[in-house]
């Protein structure tokens, strides 16, 4: 591998930028493809797009020879809006499942170190936190405050940046009102279909802990299964 390619790849990984290193197996030549590149003219376009979704490295055989695709996608993240009771259960569960978790809540009575020991907790408005750490396609967002002042902005951002999972707590009625507000800012049914609401798998979850299990189940479903079936 060319050292400059290796450096670029490491930079991309640090910046949470998805990249695929394409190695031509017969002569060892390599190139680096990014998720934002115009892929349509690429002879491997379809395969590259599939791999960006699945995150899996592998060999592809074509008429122009065999290629190995080293796929580098960022580690999955979970951003939870709301330092509520459900979040207290969801944080350790999600961390155990391998997600990098951040909790955001501007209400300092909720966002305390005592309630979330040792976790990444931001006692600030989502608008401020997401400016420094923007959402992306390898991030899941669960909004659980039910307060539109806090939840709406990150939910809209999550839909625009194509977070792999977007969940919103609230009754069907609350969610209906939410969609009316979102229509006013230009979001459409295509976006709305992507919102998991009522939040979580339908397992009859009742307690905050059970709802956390349902939410984590939905996130893992979106992470592991949807990439293969999407589109």
């Amino acid at each position, binding site marked *: *591998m*060319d*050292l400059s390619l*290796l*450096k670029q*790849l*490491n930079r991309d*990984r640090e910046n949470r930028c998805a990249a695929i290193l394409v*190695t031509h*197996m017969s002569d*060892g030549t390599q190139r680096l493809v990014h998720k934002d590149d115009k892929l349509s003219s690429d002879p491997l376009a379809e395969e590259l797009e599939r791999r960006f979704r699945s*995150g*899996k*490295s*592998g*060999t592809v055989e074509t008429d122009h020879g065999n290629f*190995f695709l*080293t*796929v580098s*996608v*960022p*580690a*999955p993240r979970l951003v939870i809006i709301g330092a509520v009771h459900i979040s207290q259960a969801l944080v350790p569960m999600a961390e155990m499942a*391998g997600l990098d978790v951040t909790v955001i809540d501007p209400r300092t009575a909720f966002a305390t170190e005592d309630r979330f020991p040792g976790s990444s907790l931001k006692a600030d408005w989502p608008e401020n936190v997401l400016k420094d750490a923007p959402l992306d396609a*390898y991030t899941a967002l669960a909004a659980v405050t039910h307060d539109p002042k806090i939840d709406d902005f990150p939910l809209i951002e999550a839909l625009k940046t194509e977070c792999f999972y977007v969940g919103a707590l609230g009754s069907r009625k609350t969610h209906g009102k939410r969609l009316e507000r979102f229509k006013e800012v230009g979001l459409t049914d295509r976006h709305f279909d992507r919102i998991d609401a009522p939040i979580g798998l339908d397992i009859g979850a009742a307690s905050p802990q059970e709802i956390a299990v349902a939410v984590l189940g939905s996130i893992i479903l979106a*992470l592991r299964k949807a990439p293969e079936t999407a589109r």
Partner: protein
Amino acid sequence: MTTETSSIPDALKTAEAWRNSGRPVALATVIETWGSAPRPVGSHLVIDADGNFEGSVSGGCVEGAVVAEAIDVIDTGRPTTLEFGVADETAWQVGLSCGGRIRVYVEPVN
């Protein structure tokens, strides 16, 4: 998606750091697996000319053989592909006890 634990040195970052300090380096990548294999396709092992290494391509079963081949790759500058498995005639020296087979691509970092 793979998640690397932050406390364990990352093979690709190690490769860059070693090259930056002037050490010749080869990079090994698992490119294919069959059956039960300990590390998924895309896993890396980085090796220098003295046989120091970081990362893994198996559960420690074939790293020794990959390191030896990698030193040759650093010498010749030519990439090569290695295959390991219990079906291999060298299985009793170097192979995967789990019963799987893997193919490993070894290339110099220039």
